[in-house]
């Protein structure tokens, strides 16, 4: 009976609609925040930052973004990679055009630019529904990648066609460029993720979140009730792209440092983020974290087991990874369409009663 809600009464509607209504969860949340901000930065080294923590944090932002669009508003998008590329290139152009402005502002602006692009590609969603729309978002994916490849202005006419992040500082610490220390990379991503997650949570528990979900569950009824479908869908596209753009900017500037667009933001990236959302749980912020963690950890774990432990060739392990990820996707859609988040919820419900069966 460690985990319980008995005796945890609410006396106001404010308290009833808070993020963690159960006290045990609230304590858990603050403990995790304390560890994330107070302990990990002092222990992290380059391997842990680059292999696990930084990609996890960035993918979590992207997954939250896609989850808003797909999980909350019901619009499946296969253009995530393209939108991440918009964030990355916007950030690059801003960084090189205005070197004196803080990188934090650049990343946020990159998110804003991606939001505008995302909303533009979201316009057809008013007429096109379901997988028609999913295929239509492929237009965004392929067009945007082509654009960043073919128009030299976007990569400042560099000979390689790549973009690479110049060194920028936040409070005296380098956060981009070759000399960035692991804790700095980790912390800037963590701060962005924390803020993004809070914003996402606030939006999804309020009016706008309910109009998204109404559109997702039954768009015609939603419209008759008073949801403006244009506004609901476009805000979903914009907010989603805002987060995805931030993720793209961080992915380029902080994580990779240098980017070739087709490689870093190809259609595989769109699928990867979509899989995170499915495995983690459609329509759950927590699920976005769980899905991102799972798909970041899985290749690392497979590599440790397959390559380091068993001595298998890397390409074999990579193929096995495809099989496992594909099978997991189908497994989750069959067994638990609400993903890891639902499994966690069920575990909590069991824990509530434990050790008694009823």
């Amino acid at each position, binding site marked *: 009976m460690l985990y319980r809600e008995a005796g945890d009464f609410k006396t*106001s*509607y*404010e308290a*009833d*609609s808070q993020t963690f209504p159960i006290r045990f969860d609230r304590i858990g949340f603050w403990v995790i925040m304390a560890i994330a901000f107070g302990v990990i930065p002092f222990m992290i080294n380059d391997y842990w930052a680059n292999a696990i923590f930084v990609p996890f944090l960035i993918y979590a932002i992207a997954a939250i973004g896609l989850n808003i669009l797909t999980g909350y508003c019901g619009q499946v998008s296969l253009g995530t990679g393209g939108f991440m590329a918009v964030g990355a290139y916007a950030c690059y152009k801003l960084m090189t055009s205005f070197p004196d402005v803080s990188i934090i502002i650049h990343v946020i602006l990159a998110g804003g630019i991606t939001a505008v692009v995302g909303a533009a590609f979201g316009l057809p969603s008013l007429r096109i529904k379901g997988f028609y729309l999913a295929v239509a978002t492929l237009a965004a994916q392929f067009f945007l990648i082509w654009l960043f490849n073919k128009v030299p202005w976007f990569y400042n006419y560099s000979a390689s066609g790549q973009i690479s992040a110049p060194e920028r500082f936040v409070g005296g610490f380098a956060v981009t460029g070759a000399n960035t220390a692991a804790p700095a990379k980790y912390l800037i991503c963590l701060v962005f993720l924390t803020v993004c997650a809070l*914003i996402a949570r*606030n*939006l999804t*528990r*309020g*009016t*706008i979140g*309910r*109009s998204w*979900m*109404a559109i*997702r*569950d*039954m768009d*015609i*009824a*939603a*419209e*008759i*009730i*008073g*949801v*403006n*479908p244009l506004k609901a869908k476009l*805000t979903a596209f914009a*907010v989603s792209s805002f987060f995805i753009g931030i993720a793209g900017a961080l992915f380029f500037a902080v994580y990779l440092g240098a980017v070739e667009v087709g490689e870093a933001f190809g259609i595989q990236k769109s699928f990867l983020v979509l899989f995170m959302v499915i495995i983690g749980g459609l*329509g759950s912020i927590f699920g976005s974290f769980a899905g991102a963690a799972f798909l970041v950890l899985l290749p690392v774990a497979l590599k440790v087991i397959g390559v380091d432990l068993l001595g298998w060739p890397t390409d074999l392990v990579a193929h096995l990874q495809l099989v496992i990820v594909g099978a997991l996707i189908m497994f989750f859609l069959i067994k638990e369409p609400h993903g890891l988040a639902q499994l966690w919820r069920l575990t909590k419900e069991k824990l509530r009663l434990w050790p008694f069966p009823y």
Partner: protein
Amino acid sequence: MLDSVEPYVTADGRTIGGVLMDMRGITLRFGGVEAIKNISFDIREGEIRAIIGPNGAGKSSMLNVISGFYHPQEGEVWFRGEKRAAMKPYQVARLGIARTFQNIALFEGMTVLDNIMTGRLTHMKTGMLSQALWYGRAQAEEVANREVVERIIDFLEIQAIRKTPVGRLPYGLKKRVELARALAAEPKLLLLDEPMAGMNVEEKEDMSRFILDVNDEFGTTIALIEHDMGVVMDISDRVVVMDYGRKIGDGTPDEVRGNQEVIDAYLGVAHD
């Protein structure tokens, strides 16, 4: 007496006011099929107005015209003394017209509370930025609207299922939640599309009581489609009868009951 627009008081003490909604010469076509042929009728403030007719008579299409989902090729819709321009359904909702659906159209993935809160959408005004911050305006608005919703939850006696996802509820309760969602908008005109379809006698009695209470306590004008003649004749003030897209009768339940054309088209067939 009913043809005048003077307010009057019914036998059970409710005041019926002037004309709230006036449908003038509505014709609706799908391709070559005329679903509604030149129909006119009005709905007066505070009354319970029933639309009846056999299957395929065009009743639901008529409701869809009122709620702005279908746009008639001919005719005018007047609401509160003004001609209503061609509007999108969500704009109609903002005028204060709410409805329920024949096949329940709840948001299955959301809780009962969230469903009903969605019904308050037309009353919620805070922008996206303050919602993103939550504390302050957004929270205050949320709490104020939650209080309204909680009153409706009490009224319809669904307190116990507040936090239950709608997908898990039985049919009868879903119908009640749908009514709650429509009421949450505090509509001037409430449209009910077969509110008692598929219910047993007990549930029908409950639903009739709720409809009468809504009309009585909140003074909401109600237009409803229903197949159960007993219920229709009991609770409605005036009845429109449709058949094959035409209007074949209009008046009090007693007048309609005596109308030969209505008996031929509908009641006679149904009861012989």
